[in-house]
C-alpha cells in the first residue's frame, strides 16, 4: 500500500478498467476520492490510494462517500466517489438532491454494475439513475475508454455544473487492457462561495432550481447528439443495425464486424437523431444493452421500430455467443446447433467456501447445533454461512438489513413462532456501514434479539479493507479505532448482555449463545478473531488425523473446514438396526493453520498436532 504508483512520462500500461479510472481521476487533479468497498468497484479507490497529492478514503458507506465528494466539489475542488450498483441505492438520497444543487468543482460518480452477479445479491441497471436523477451518463467499452471518459467527465461536469455518472460493469472493471496514460494536471479549487439559494436545499430554494434540471437535460441532449462519444459506424451489411453501449459494443463488433452500429458512449441523454439515422440505413434495428430494456423503450417511444429483449436475455452478461443466434432468428435463419464438444461436462459445483481457520466457522458450527432458532444474515463472507454444511442463515437481503428484519420477525411472529429464538448475524464492517441504526432500533423498540457481531477486524469479502473498527486507514496507517463494546453499549444494550468471545473456543461460544437466547431482550455477542487473509492472523501449528483412532463419525466434517478431506467411506449397522454412514478423514497440513475447531467435536481424540519437523516452511510457529 505504501508504494507510490509510477507517475512519469506518458506510456502504455496494462490496466484494469478500475485502474484506468483511478489513473484518470488522479491525472484530472482530483483532491478528494471516497468509496466503501464493493465488488466490482473496490480497486478504483484502492489503486487511487497509491497515488500522491490527493485525499483517498474508505468512507463508512456509499452515501457518506458521495456526501464527502459533494462537499469537496462545493469548494471548487475536483471530487470523485465510486461504488457498486447497490451502493448507489444507499447513496441515492444524496444523489437525488445533489442533482439539484449541481457540482461546482468537477464531480464524477463511478457506479459499477455486477452484471451476471458474480458477487452481489441482485442485478441492477444503474443507467436508470441518469434518467431518474437527470444526470448525464458516460459508458466506456474498455479500459482505454474508461480512462478517456473519466477525464472528459470532469470537464463535462464543470462546463454544465452537473455531477456525471460513469457507468461501469464487471467486464470493464475487471478486464485488463492496454491504456495510453498521461500526466497529472493541477486543479486549484476556486473556493467555497456562500450561496444558500444553491446549497441550502429547503423547498423554496429547490423549487427555484428544479426547472434548471429540465433545461440542463435539453442542453445535454444537444451535447449527446453531437458528441464524439456517440459514433455511428455505417458498416456494409445493412440487414441488421445495432444500438449498443458499454462492453456489449465489443461483443457486437466481434460477432458482426460489417454491421452498422450506433455506439453510445454518452448514453444519457440519448442522441435520438442518431438513432433515427441508423434506423433509416438498415432493414432491422436490434438494441443490445446490459441489462434492462432502457434504450429499447425510448426508441420505441420515439416511434422507431426495433428489436431488443424480445430476442435477447433480460439478465446476465451478453456475449457474441448469445448475440449470434438472436440475430439468426431476426434474419429468419435457424441457429446452428451447438457442436457436441462445446457442451459442458458435468462436474460437481465448487461454491466459494470459508477459509481454513476462518473464525466464522466456529459461529456457524455452533448455530448449526442449536434447534428452534431463526437467524437473519447480512452481506459479507459470512453470508456463506447459509451454505453447506451449516445451513445456518435464514435471510439475507442488503447491507445492514439483518437487525431490521430480525426485529420485524420478532414483532410480527404469531403463535406458531412464539417459542423460537431470533438471532441476527452481522460483520464488523457491515455494522459500521449500516448496522448501527438497526441495533439502535432494536434497543429503542425493545426487541428480543441476540445479535452476533462477527468481528474479523476487516472488510473480508472484498479483500481486506480497513474500517473504523480496525484501527487502520486506507494507507494502512494508524487511525482512531472505535471500541465496539462501548459503541454497542451506547446504542442501548445493557452491559451484562454484551460479551466478547473467541470463536475458536467452541464451549464458551456455545454456552454464551445458549444463555443469551434465553434472555428476553437485546444482547450482543462479539465474536472476535482476525480474518485469516489479513496480516493480523498468525497461523498456529497444523493438525493431523491419527488414522488408527479415527472412528469415521464425521463430526469434524460438520465444522466445514476446507482442509479436512474424506479418505474412505463405510457403513455400519448399529445394535438398534439403524444404518450409519462413516467417513474417515485426514487433514491437509499444507492448508491447515491450526485453529483447532475440528479438534473439539472429535469424539475419539484422533486429531493431534503434527510433529514439529513436519510443519510446512511457510507456517509461522506460535
Amino acid at each position, binding site marked *: 500500500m505504501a508504494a507510490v504508483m509510477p507517475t512519469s512520462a506518458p506510456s502504455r500500461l496494462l490496466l484494469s478498467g478500475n485502474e484506468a479510472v483511478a489513473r484518470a481521476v488522479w491525472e484530472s487533479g482530483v483532491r478528494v476520492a471516497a468509496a466503501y468497498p464493493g465488488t466490482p468497484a473496490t480497486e478504483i479507490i484502492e489503486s487511487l490510494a497509491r497515488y500522491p497529492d490527493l485525499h483517498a478514503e474508505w468512507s463508512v458507506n456509499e452515501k457518506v462517500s458521495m456526501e464527502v465528494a459533494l462537499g469537496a466539489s462545493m469548494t471548487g475542488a475536483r471530487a470523485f466517489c465510486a461504488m457498486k450498483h447497490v451502493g448507489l441505492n444507499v447513496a441515492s438520497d444524496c444523489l437525488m438532491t445533489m442533482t439539484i444543487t449541481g457540482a461546482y468543482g468537477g464531480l464524477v460518480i463511478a457506479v459499477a454494475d455486477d452484471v451476471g452477479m458474480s458477487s452481489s445479491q441482485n442485478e441492477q441497471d444503474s443507467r436508470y439513475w441518469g434518467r431518474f436523477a437527470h444526470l448525464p451518463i458516460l459508458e466506456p467499452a474498455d479500459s482505454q475508454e474508461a480512462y478517456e471518459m473519466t477525464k472528459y467527465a470532469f470537464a463535462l461536469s464543470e462546463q454544465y455544473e452537473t455531477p456525471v455518472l460513469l457507468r461501469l460493469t464487471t467486464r470493464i472493471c475487471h478486464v*485488463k487492457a*492496454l491504456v495510453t496514460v498521461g500526466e497529472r494536471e493541477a486543479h486549484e479549487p476556486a473556493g467555497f462561495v456562500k450561496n444558500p439559494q444553491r446549497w441550502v436545499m429547503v423547498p423554496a430554494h429547490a423549487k427555484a432550481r428544479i426547472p434548471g434540471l429540465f433545461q440542463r437535460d435539453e442542453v445535454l441532449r444537444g451535447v449527446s447528439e453531437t458528441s464524439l462519444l456517440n459514433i455511428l459506424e455505417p458498416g456494409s451489411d445493412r440487414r441488421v443495425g445495432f444500438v449498443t453501449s458499454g462492453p456489449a459494443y465489443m461483443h457486437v463488433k466481434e460477432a458482426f464486424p460489417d454491421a452498422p452500429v450506433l455506439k453510445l458512449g454518452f448514453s444519457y441523454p440519448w442522441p435520438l437523431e442518431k438513432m433515427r439515422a441508423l434506423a433509416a440505413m438498415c432493414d432491422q434495428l436490434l438494441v443490445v444493452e446490459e441489462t434492462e430494456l432502457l434504450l429499447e423503450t425510448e426508441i420505441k417511444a420515439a416511434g422507431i421500430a426495433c428489436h431488443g429483449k424480445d430476442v435477447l436475455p433480460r439478465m446476465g452478461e451478453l*456475449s457474441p455467443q448469445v448475440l449470434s443466434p438472436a440475430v439468426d432468428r431476426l434474419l429468419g435463419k435457424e441457429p446452428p446447433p451447438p457442436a457436441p464438444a462445446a457442451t459442458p461436462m458435468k*462436474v460437481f459445483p465448487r461454491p466459494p467456501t470459508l477459509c481454513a481457520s476462518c473464525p466464522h466457522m466456529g459461529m456457524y458450527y455452533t448455530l448449526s447445533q442449536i434447534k428452534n432458532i431463526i437467524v437473519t444474515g447480512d452481506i459479507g463472507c459470512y453470508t456463506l454461512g447459509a451454505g453447506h454444511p451449516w445451513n445456518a442463515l435464514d435471510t439475507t437481503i442488503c447491507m445492514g438489513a439483518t437487525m431490521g428484519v430480525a426485529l420485524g420477525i420478532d414483532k410480527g411472529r404469531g403463535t406458531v413462532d412464539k417459542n423460537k429464538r431470533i438471532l441476527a448475524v452481522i460483520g464488523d464492517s457491515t455494522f459500521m456501514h449500516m448496522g448501527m441504526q438497526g441495533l439502535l432500533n432494536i434497543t429503542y423498540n425493545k426487541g428480543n434479539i441476540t445479535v452476533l457481531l462477527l468481528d474479523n477486524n476487516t472488510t473480508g469479502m472484498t479483500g481486506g479493507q480497513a474500517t473504523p473498527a480496525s484501527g487502520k486507514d486506507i494507507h494502512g496507517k494508524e487511525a482512531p479505532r472505535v471500541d465496539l463494546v462501548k459503541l454497542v453499549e451506547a446504542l442501548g444494550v445493557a452491559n451484562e448482555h454484551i460479551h466478547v468471545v473467541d470463536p475458536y473456543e467452541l464451549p464458551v461460544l456455545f454456552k454464551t449463545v445458549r444463555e443469551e437466547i434465553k434472555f428476553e431482550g437485546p444482547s450482543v455477542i462479539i465474536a472476535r478473531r482476525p480474518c485469516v487473509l489479513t496480516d493480523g492472523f498468525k497461523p498456529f501449528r497444523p493438525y493431523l488425523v491419527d488414522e488408527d483412532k479415527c472412528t469415521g463419525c464425521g463430526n469434524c466434517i460438520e465444522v466445514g473446514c476446507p482442509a479436512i478431506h474424506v479418505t474412505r467411506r463405510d457403513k455400519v449397522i448399529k445394535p438398534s438396526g439403524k444404518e450409519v454412514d462413516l467417513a474417515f478423514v485426514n487433514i491437509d497440513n499444507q492448508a491447515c493453520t491450526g485453529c483447532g475447531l475440528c479438534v473439539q467435536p472429535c469424539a475419539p481424540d484422533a486429531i493431534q498436532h503434527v510433529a514439529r519437523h513436519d510443519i510446512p516452511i511457510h507456517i509461522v510457529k506460535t
Partner: protein
Amino acid sequence: MTQNQITNILVCGIGGQGVMTATEILAEAAIAEGHDVKKTEVAGMAQRGGVVTSHLRFGRKVLSPQIEPGTVQVLLGFEGAEALRWSHYLRPDGIALVNNARLVPPVVELGLFDYPEDPTGQMRAAGHRVVSFDAMSIARDLGEIRLGNTVMLGAIADYLPFAPDVLLACIVKRFARKGENVVDANRLAFAAGREAVAKQLGTATA
C-alpha cells in the same frame, strides 16, 4: 497476414492457486511481443475457494475480452476437475496442459457430490488433446511449493505463438527484485515445466 489472428488462452483453477497472476505474466509476454491484449476474469468471490478462470486474448486488435466455448488454443489447468469443467472451451485442434492436482471441495467431502475419478482421462475420451503432469511435486522437488506457478508457465511456454524466452524474461523481470537465488529457482522451475510436458508428449507419441 491480413487476418486478425487472435490467440485464446484459458487458465483455470481455484481461488488462491495463482491463476490470475499466471495469466498476468502471460499477458505481459504477449505485450512484449507487440500484441494487443485483453485479460478478464470474474474474481468477486474467487479467493474463497471457488472456481476461477482467467481469459487471455491477444492479437493485432482484440475486441470482446471473453473467450467463447470451442475457441481456445491452449487450456492451462491448475486442477484436474477444473480443467474438465472448462474443456468444452477447447477448439478441436487445441491442447490442454493440466496439473494433476486434485482439490476436493467441502461439498464433495460432505457426500453431496462426487469428484470425477479420472478428469484428464474423461477429457481424452471426449477427444481432447491433453498433457497432464504433477506441477506441485515438481515444485516440491525443487524445494519450494510456491514455484508451482512458474512450473505451470514453463508447461505452456512451447505452446505460445512466440519464443519461450519471451515468457521467461517476463518471469525473471517479476522476480528480479527478490534476488538472484529466487530468479535462478524460477528459471529451474520454468525449465522443469517445459520438460514435464515434452516428456509426457514423448511417452504419448512413442
